[in-house]
C-alpha cells in the first residue's frame, strides 16, 4: 500500500501555491485561538503527517452542514480540504454512487481501521427499526454503528447529529436520536449549529491533525475554542444591551439604528457559538448584523424552546401556551385574592367572636 499523502501534497497537487497554504495555516491558527508560534506547527503537521482519512455519513438531515463546509472561507484551501475528505467516502459529494459507493465505504473502513474519523451529518431515526432513513437498502442506524465500530473518533456535525434538531422536535414521530445516544463507546465531538460555521468545521479537523488529539471540549462535548462563549459575549450590539437600548418593534427607528434585539427574542444570551466573531460567508455578516435576533440554532432542542421572537418564552408544560410571567402573575393573583378574602373572613370572625365574648370580658 502506498504511503498516504499528506495534506500539503494534496494541496500542491491541486495547484495551491505555498503562499496560499501558509495563509491557510495562519488563518486556521488564529481561528483556533492559537498564537503565531503555532502557525509553523500547523504547517509542519500538514506537510509531514499522513492526511486524516474521513468518512462522512449522512442520516436524517438537510445537507446544510455540507453546504456550509464547502464554503469554508480560507482562500482556495476550501476545495482542498473538501477533496481530501471526499476522497474517502461522502455519499452526497463523491462521484461514485450505488454499490460502488458502498464498496468505497467498506474499503475505507478496512484500509484505515482504527485511524479514520467518522463525521456524521444528520441523525438516525430509531422508530420502526430505523426504517425512516434508508442508506444503500439498509437503515442508516446500521451504517452508523458499522462505521463507528472502527473509528478513531466521531464528529457530530450540526444540530441534527449533536442534539436532534428539527426532526427530533416534539413529538419526534420517527424518534430521531442524536449520535451520542446511539454510539456510546467512542469519543464524540459535537459541532452544533444549523449549520455550523464553515471555518469552525475546518478548524476542528485541522486541530485534530496538528495535535493528534481532540480539542478541549466543554461539558457538552463541544470544542471550547469555538463554543466557550456566547454570541452575546462578543456581539457588536452588546453596548446597546448594556445601555438598555432595544429594538421595540421590527420596523421602528431603533431597528434602523441597529439597537439590541434582546426584546425581539434574540437567543444570543443563551447560545454558545462563534458567529459574532468568525461570522459567515467569508466574514461578511451574521444574523444579528443583518437585523434579526439569534434563534439559538446551536443549542439543544432549540425548536422546542418556544417562539424565536419572545424573550420570556412560552411554557408548553402547562398545557396552554403561557410564559413564566403569565403563569407566575396568575398564581400570585390567585394567592393575593385568596389572602384578601381570607383577611375579610378573619375580620368578620373576629368581630363575631368579640360580640359574643363581650359579657365575659367585663367580668375580668
Amino acid at each position, binding site marked *: 500500500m502506498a504511503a498516504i499523502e499528506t495534506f500539503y501534497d494534496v494541496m500542491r497537487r491541486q495547484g495551491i501555491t505555498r503562499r496560499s497554504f501558509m495563509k491557510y495555516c495562519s488563518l486556521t491558527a488564529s481561528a483556533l485561538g492559537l498564537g503565531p508560534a503555532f502557525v509553523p506547527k500547523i504547517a509542519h503537521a500538514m506537510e509531514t503527517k499522513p492526511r486524516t482519512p474521513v468518512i462522512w455519513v449522512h442520516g436524517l438531515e438537510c445537507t446544510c452542514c455540507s453546504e456550509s463546509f464547502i464554503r469554508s472561507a480560507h482562500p482556495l484551501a476550501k476545495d482542498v480540504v473538501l477533496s481530501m475528505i471526499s476522497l474517502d467516502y461522502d455519499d452526497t459529494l463523491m462521484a461514485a454512487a450505488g454499490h460502488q459507493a458502498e464498496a468505497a465505504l467498506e474499503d475505507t473502513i478496512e484500509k484505515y481501521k482504527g485511524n479514520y474519523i467518522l463525521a456524521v451529518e444528520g441523525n438516525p431515526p430509531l422508530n420502526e427499526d430505523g426504517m425512516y432513513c434508508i442508506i444503500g437498502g439498509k437503515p442508516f442506524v446500521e451504517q452508523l454503528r458499522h462505521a463507528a465500530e472502527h473509528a478513531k473518533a466521531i464528529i457530530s456535525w450540526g444540530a441534527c447529529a449533536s442534539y436532534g434538531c428539527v426532526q427530533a422536535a416534539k413529538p419526534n414521530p420517527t424518534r430521531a436520536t442524536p449520535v451520542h445516544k446511539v454510539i456510546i463507546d467512542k469519543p464524540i465531538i459535537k459541532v452544533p449549529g444549523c449549520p455550523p460555521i464553515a471555518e469552525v468545521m475546518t478548524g476542528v479537523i485541522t486541530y485534530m491533525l496538528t495535535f493528534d488529539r481532540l480539542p478541549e471540549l466543554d*461539558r457538552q462535548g463541544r470544542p471550547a475554542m469555538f463554543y466557550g462563549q456566547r454570541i452575546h459575549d462578543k456581539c457588536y450590539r452588546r453596548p446597546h444591551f448594556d445601555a438598555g437600548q432595544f429594538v421595540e418593534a421590527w420596523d421602528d427607528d431603533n431597528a434602523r439604528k441597529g439597537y439590541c434585539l434582546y426584546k425581539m427574542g434574540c437567543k444570543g444570551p443563551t447560545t454558545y457559538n462563534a458567529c459574532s466573531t468568525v461570522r459567515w460567508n467569508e466574514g461578511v455578516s451574521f444574523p444579528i448584523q443583518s437585523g434579526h435576533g439569534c434563534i439559538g440554532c446551536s443549542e439543544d432542542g432549540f425548536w422546542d*424552546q418556544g417562539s424565536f421572537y419572545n424573550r*420570556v418564552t412560552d411554557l408548553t408544560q402547562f398545557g396552554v401556551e403561557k410564559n413564566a410571567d403569565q403563569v407566575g402573575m396568575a398564581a400570585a393573583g390567585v*394567592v*393575593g385574592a385568596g389572602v384578601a378574602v381570607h*383577611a375579610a373572613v378573619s375580620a368578620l*370572625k373576629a368581630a363575631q367572636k368579640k360580640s359574643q365574648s363581650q359579657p365575659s370580658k367585663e367580668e375580668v
Partner: protein
Amino acid sequence: MTDISPQPLAGTDANPGDLTHVARQTSVYVYEAPVRLWHWINAAAITILCLTGYFIGSPPPTMIISEAAHQFVFGYIRFVHFAAGWVLAIGFLGRIYWAIFGNHHARQMFYLPIYSGTWWREVFFEVRWYLFLEKQPKKYVGHNPLAQLAMFCFITLGVSFMILTGFALYAEGLGHGSWADAMFGWVVMLVGGNSMLLHTYHHLGMWWITIFMIIHIYVAIREDIMSRQSIVSTMISGMRTFKDDDPD
C-alpha cells in the same frame, strides 16, 4: 419561660385589669440577633432581586439618554441584581452556619419532622385554624408546624433553587472555565443543556418566592393580631410574647 414578675407598673395609665393581664404574659427569647439580621437583609435582597429580575426578563422601555458608550441603564439593573444575589447567597450560607451553631429555633427552618405523627396532626390543626374550623389556635415558641412546612418549601428549597440556578446563569457571563462554571455549570446540564430553559425556571422561581412574600406578610400580620403570641415584633426584638398563660 421566664415570667415577667407582676410588679406595679410605672405610670398612671395601668389599671388593675392591665396589671392582671401583665401577670399572665410570658415571653421567651427565640430569634437570636444573627437570625433577625439575616431575616431583614434577606427580605431586602429578595425584594431587590424580584424587581431587577423582572426587568431583566422584560426590560424597561428604551431610554436614549446619550450614545450607548456613555449609557449603562440595563447594565446597572443587572449589576444590582448580581450584587443582591451575592448578598442573598452569602446571607444564606451564614444562615446555615447559624443553624448549626445557634439555638435550636435557628434549625427549625431546615428540616421537616415528617415521621412524627404529632407534627402532622398539628399541621392539619393549623390548616383547620386557617379554614376557620378551630376556635382557638395553639401557642408555639418557634414556627407552628404549618409555618415550618412553608418556610422549608419556600425559603430553604426555594432560595437554594434560586441560588443554584442564579449562579449557573451568572457562570454564563463569566464563561467557560471560570470558577462559577466549574462550580455551577453542571446545573445547566440538569435541564438538558439549553440554558434558555434554566432562565425560564429561574423566572418561575421568582414567582414562587413572590407568592411566599404575599402569604408570609399577610399571615405574620394576621397571626400577630389573632393568635395568642407575638409574631411581627418577635422578628425585631427576638422575644416571643404570649398573650395568656392558659395551658395548651
